[in-house]
């Protein structure tokens, strides 16, 4: 027996979804933090406000932005990815050996870049496969793949530094269009591609959904495994490109090309509002995070903070930025992991 009431219409009308207040703040928090940090540094340091320094910040952000693009998709699915150092190292050495260089007679040019990125994608794919096939958490598979990547890179390195003599690749770091180096434009393109993937493709939307409620996807008849593998593969490709970019910057292939990029990319993504638990944020959020982190690094040098303290000050500001972004939408029973 159910109750029928003449008031049904009103009742229905009264429960229209209300917009949650927190949403807009959560999304704009990092951008506001970015603006604040920029304004503070600009006020403190004349060197910071120069046009050339803006160029410098953009150039410095390029590699991190590309790595973060990749890591963002993985974080969106709720997994984590620590494989950047190994994959970047492998692709950095690979590309240095494939384009014109001092170690061998290969001169594949752009094809060499493509092959290096494919190698990186294959390594990324390996993390994804280990995750879905062996059911090993991504924390471990990516840590393992990072070690494998470094090993592969060391094998290819074979004791002699490969220096590139390829004009195109060297030009990426040197030539400028509209004041920005080509590496920066590559990063901009990556962000746009990443954003489009996230917005317009099944892969991107499913990655987002996997972070939201993976079990529901399975109940809807979606096989999530291929999408997870694809996400790691795509992330690997981004790291590979980042490795190539480092090689272009340094003019040489280094095994350590990706050192430290794992944690800095994750930090950037999280600072930008991408949740580690998945299902929230995205490439644009992460890009704001990248800019925030890069501006901090640059600004602290410009302001003249002692090198001993720089890391600490940066850590403090990152924590403060996240805290400031979190406080407005804090709820009592909110889960923070």
């Amino acid at each position: 027996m159910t109750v029928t009431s003449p008031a049904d219409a009103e009742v229905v009308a009264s429960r229209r979804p209300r917009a949650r207040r927190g949403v807009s703040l959560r999304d704009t928090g990092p951008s506001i933090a970015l603006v604040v940090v920029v304004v503070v540094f600009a006020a403190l340091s004349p060197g910071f406000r120069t046009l050339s320094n803006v160029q410098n910040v953009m150039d410095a952000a390029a590699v991190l932005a590309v790595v973060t693009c990749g890591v963002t998709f993985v974080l969106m699915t709720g997994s984590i990815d620590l494989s950047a150092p190994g994959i970047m190292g492998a692709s950095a050495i690979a590309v240095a050996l494939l384009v014109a260089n001092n170690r061998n007679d290969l001169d594949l040019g752009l094809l060499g870049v493509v092959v290096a990125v494919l190698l990186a994608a294959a390594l990324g794919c390996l993390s994804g496969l280990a995750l879905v096939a062996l059911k090993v958490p991504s924390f471990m598979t990516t840590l393992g793949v990072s070690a494998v990547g470094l090993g592969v890179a060391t094998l290819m390195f074979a004791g002699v530094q490969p220096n590139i003599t390829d004009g195109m690749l060297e030009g990426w770091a040197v030539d400028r269009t509209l004041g920005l180096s080509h590496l920066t434009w590559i990063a901009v393109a990556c962000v746009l591609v990443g954003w489009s993937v996230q917005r317009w493709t099944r892969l991107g939307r499913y990655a987002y959904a996997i972070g939201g409620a993976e079990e529901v996807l399975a109940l809807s008849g979606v096989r999530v495994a291929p999408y997870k593998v694809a996400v790691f593969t795509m992330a690997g490709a981004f790291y590979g490109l980042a490795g190539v970019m480092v090689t272009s910057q340094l003019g040489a292939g280094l095994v350590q090309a990706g050192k430290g990029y794992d944690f800095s990319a994750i930090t950037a993504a999280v600072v930008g509002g991408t949740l580690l638990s998945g299902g929230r944020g995205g490439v644009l959020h992460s890009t704001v995070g990248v800019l925030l982190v890069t501006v901090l690094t640059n600004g602290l040098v410009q302001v003249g903070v002692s090198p001993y303290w720089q890391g600490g000050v940066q850590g403090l500001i990152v924590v403060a930025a996240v805290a400031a972004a979190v406080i407005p939408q804090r709820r009592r029973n909110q889960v923070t992991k």
Partner: protein
Amino acid sequence: LTGCTEEAVGSAGPTEAAGACDPADVTLVGQVRNESNPYEAAWLDGGDAFAEQVGLTQERLTYDGDSTRQQEQISQLLAGDTDCLVMNVLPNGDSDTPPIVEGAEAAGAFLVTQWNKPADLAVTDYDQWLSHITYDGVASGKQIGDALAEAIGGSGGIVALQGILDTGAAKDRFAGLEESLAANPDVELLDDQTANFSRAEALEVTKTLLTKHGDDVKGIWAANDDMALGALEALQQAGRTDVAVVGIDAVPDALTAIEDGTMTATVSSDGPWQGGIGLAIGYCVATGELAVEDIADDDRAWFAEQFLITSDNVADFTSPETSAADFECSGVFSRSQGPIS
């Protein structure tokens, strides 16, 4: 504490007198940070060359710049058969040397260390620690500082890229730069930052410093060649050709850069020789050709010969070769420039 003893059973102290080893029983171990660095790879290759010379093979160990891992490898190594063990070790930092030395002393392995050693740790206090070899960082820091001052015409602003702050090499070299600055009062140190001996970090730091100080930067002093090469890339990207760059180590790329004229100076440190000489000293003592008591105190901790390399003499250094003669037991200390003060 009942049941406790000082030592694990099995890792007994020096049981056999030095010199009792059959040359074929000697185990040669070379340990450096990693093989993904040309200088250290060349070091290990030098060790291999020496081992081949005496009909042995070298066990190559790398610890990836990780102090704890270095200690772990050493203690594992010393837990095995140590009677005729010869170790040529590059400690990761000053603080890593004492436990390695104590371990070798207790286990009776023959140890030569290079580069890093706390100043107050005396080699002569130990029997198994045969020798410590390093280059005079203050001298090399000053040499390239002077070369830089000369290259920028004796006056102008320079920036310094420091190495890993917690290493003696980084500190000595920077002290050398300060001596050079005192001698060249018109040269101004605009900024010093650390780039951790890393090419990639040097690139970023240099870019930032270039925008911070702009055209005031006339020269870049880097505490090693890797950072100098990173700085060169940054200069190239910034389109600056008027900045002089100096480094230390004489890695092949730096020599090429000096040949090209893009880099001003570096100081040689001979990796292959270092890789061979440490094993050679240990091998000579282990096989009895050299007795620890006979090694002069001055040869227990010494500066090895180094050269300032500029465009004038770079051709002499482009292909470092080790010669068998360097490793003869009678001449293992021939490159000494004197004791570490």
